């Protein structure tokens, strides 16, 4: 007994990208948004700090307030919003959905994947040792503290020193947990200096650069972690009862992978063009599923971009032309969108987004195709590990859509 529901647009995921897509499309199409959690809003719901909403709403809110605002706008727009509804499988544009009121089959003319991203947990980072309680990702930590009010511990080691790592420190402080050490695999010079310095000064958290956590110790509860200093080759044990594994993002790409959509090697995100079309006609993607991870407001801006593309598809159902792959090299780990197709709009904010493994102060991004340089742009901002690196789309202006893949690299 499966209820069949037909809709013009099905959006999978009710975070900033999915909600913004729903709001943008609701006036012109029949929209059904499916969210597997009981509440709309996605990750900002448990990111209980300021800084949300600047680029999409031109205001600054806390994460939970931002999530409520986006959910409210989507509800007012007339889109159908279904929570506690999880897509468990699909076949072309038919979705299998589980909800407490029964199983649904959703047939849609267009599907937008907005399933977001998460952090790799300890096991996925292949860190050995015991398997005690007290090991979290930032995502779970914030869920435990801000949504459930659970007690955590007393002394934490935070693995990572990216933006989200400092967000974890904030949450720990809120929960009365002292961060005794933050570890960073990078040399000091390559850390995200401004944030790291502010964090150090504001919270007094010691940051051990050029180190990795190599072992988790503790039979029932975490008792400590073994930390390796790469510059000396020495290990030491840091006593703690809590370990937070931060950053190291992976998109929630299970559905994309099940559909057989090509994934980008560096990010494991589905491949899209600047119109946020995947390789499968009628299937689109938006938000941090594509760029794990950018800030929530940038994910939301994807929602507007994809809404325009979906409108075009609903009007003509034309399969897009073949595209050219953009292949990152060197310190560039991934770039999105990774596909250049003729006749597509400018990407969101006129920029590609990427991720780097090394710090570069004022890098020049160089595009090469068929053995020759076809573009180069110097950015007035640095490329830094652990946060999005924005690349003006002008670097791809001369791409030959019939040519071979484009290599994108950093010079300087």
């Amino acid at each position, binding site marked *: 007994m499966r209820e069949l529901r037909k809709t013009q647009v099905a959006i999978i995921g009710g975070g900033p990208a999915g909600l913004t897509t729903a709001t943008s499309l609701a006036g012109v199409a029949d929209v059904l948004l499916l969210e597997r959690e009981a509440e709309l809003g996605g990750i900002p719901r448990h990111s209980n700090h300021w800084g949300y909403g600047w680029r999409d709403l031109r205001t600054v809110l806390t994460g939970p307030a931002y999530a409520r605002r986006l959910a409210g706008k989507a509800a007012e727009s007339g889109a159908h919003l279904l929570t506690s509804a999880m897509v468990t499988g699909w076949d072309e544009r038919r979705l299998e959905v589980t909800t407490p*009121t*029964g199983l649904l089959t959703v047939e849609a003319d267009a599907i937008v994947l907005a399933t977001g991203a998460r952090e790799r947990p300890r096991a*996925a980072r292949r860190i*050995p*040792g015991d398997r005690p309680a007290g090991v979290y990702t930032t995502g779970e930590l914030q869920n*435990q503290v801000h949504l459930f009010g*659970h007690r955590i511990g007393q002394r934490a080691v935070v693995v990572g020193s990216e933006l989200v790592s400092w967000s974890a420190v904030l949450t720990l402080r809120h929960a009365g947990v002292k961060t005794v050490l933050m570890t960073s695999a990078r040399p000091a010079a390559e850390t995200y200096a401004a944030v790291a310095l502010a964090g150090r000064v504001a919270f007094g958290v010691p940051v051990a650069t050029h180190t990795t956590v190599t072992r988790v110790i503790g039979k029932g509860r975490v008792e400590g972690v073994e930390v390796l200093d790469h510059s000396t080759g020495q290990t030491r044990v840091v006593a703690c009862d809590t370990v937070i594994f931060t950053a190291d993002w992976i998109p929630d790409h299970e559905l994309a992978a099940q559909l057989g959509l090509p994934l980008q090697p560096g990010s494991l995100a589905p491949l899209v063009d600047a119109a946020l079309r995947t390789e499968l006609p009628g299937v689109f993607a938006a938000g941090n599923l594509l760029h794990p991870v950018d800030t929530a407001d940038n994910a939301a801006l994807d929602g507007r971009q994809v809404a325009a593309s979906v409108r075009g598809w609903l009007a003509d159902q034309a399969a897009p032309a073949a595209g050219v792959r953009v292949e990152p090299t060197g310190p560039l780990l991934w770039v999105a969108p990774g596909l250049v197709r003729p006749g597509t709009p400018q990407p969101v904010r006129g920029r590609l987004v990427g991720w780097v493994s090394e710090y570069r102060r004022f890098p020049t991004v160089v595009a090469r195709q068929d053995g020759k340089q076809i573009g180069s742009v110097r950015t007035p901002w640095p490329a830094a590990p652990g946060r999005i690196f924005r690349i003006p789309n002008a670097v791809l202006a001369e791409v030959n859509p019939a040519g071979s893949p484009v290599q994108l690299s950093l010079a300087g």
Partner: protein
Amino acid sequence: MNSVTSAPTPEPFDVVVIGAGVVGSAVARQLSGYRLRVGLVDARPDVGDVTSKANTAILHTGFDAKPGSLESRLVHDGYRLLGDYAAQVGIPVERTGALLVAWNSEQFEALPGLAAKAQANGYAETFQIDADEVYQREPRLGPGALGGLVVPGESIICPWTTTLAYATEAKARGAVLLLGRRVTGIEVGAELTTLATEAGPISTRWVVNAAGLGSDHLDQAFGYQRFTVTPRRGELFVFDKLTRPMVSEILLPVPSAKGKGVLISPTIYGNVMLGPTAEDLTDRTDTSTSAGGFAELLAKGATIMPELLAQEVTASYAGLRAATEHSDYVVDVDPAQRYLCLGGIRSTGLTSSMALAVHAAELLAGAGLELAEIPEAEMLAPPRMAWIGQVGTRPFADADKIAADPAYGEIVCFCERVTRGEIRDALASPIPPIDRGGLGRRTRATNGRCQGFFCGARVDELLNGGKADA
């Protein structure tokens, strides 16, 4: 917390089984089918919480056992008994088959001998294939395979549900489960044996030693010096469910003098497993994984299936096998002390468990324990276990179940698609879980790729009955 120490102890027991792993639970289940007062005692707060939970989870045909050994016979018989029981109570089993892959000429030349050994173990269905056929069956295998031996009957099974089913049925038949009660001393009297435990003494006529890693110490308490358990650590990687299509059957190495070696196997939960290593330890509690173990797995995996190593790891864990200096199980009954030893039961104990239980009952009867069968009409129907296999219908996909109870449509753990209804049922079951690990073994909750990123806090809340205490 559950009733770890508050369970009533109708003393004296007729038989107390020490060790609520897969073997001890199977024995308790068997003995509780007779008119006996049976106790099942374990130091841990849950059943199957030591070696049994970290098994490679293969239902063995016994093709490669030592012909003529007790292990060979019991694995052979146990394969059929557990296979039938699994179908009856709902223990997930997938009949995947296995392929032994020969990577060098020495291994290739060993294949006919292995086929003959299988025959001697009463398993005649193996057949040899050439390199082309190996790659037709398993196109993702690394280059260099020379040929293989197919073992069609080897299967994968859920070891957690197996132990839990035995213990649940034993309990339903009246056996008393005494968890969290480490046995610290034994005093054999004329009629009764007294077991000292942290929570007070337990009195019983007969004792069955199914204590796994502690079975030699317990044996010594009865005055024996016949075997020593050397904990043999096996480390494993569990890969993301997206890798499951890469492997269609159990990929075994050709066994060498050093043991069975590292294998790649689908799991019953839809993952792919790489392992185990084999490393003799002295610490019987050291179930940590190690940098060296990971390096060995990655090196072996790089030969067998390089593509797999590029995929995401969902979990890693280590288990300890109760290895001894003997090549066979140490099974012996002592009528004078009313004592049965089931020692040195290694990885094959999962498959042989029911046959071991039948054998144990026969040995006890032969030694003087009266076994009066409970008539069929008085016997309870076996339990129906919660289904946590990947193949088959789980509640999240069961329209009728959701229509009858919306909690089965409310997915709490997204990666493993575990519903609130299943978590609620596990918490209300005869042997409830007391922590995340135990809940994971009953439902799969938090065992998926995100390892609690999305659901950990909610699962903790459900485990704690809604109290704000992680």
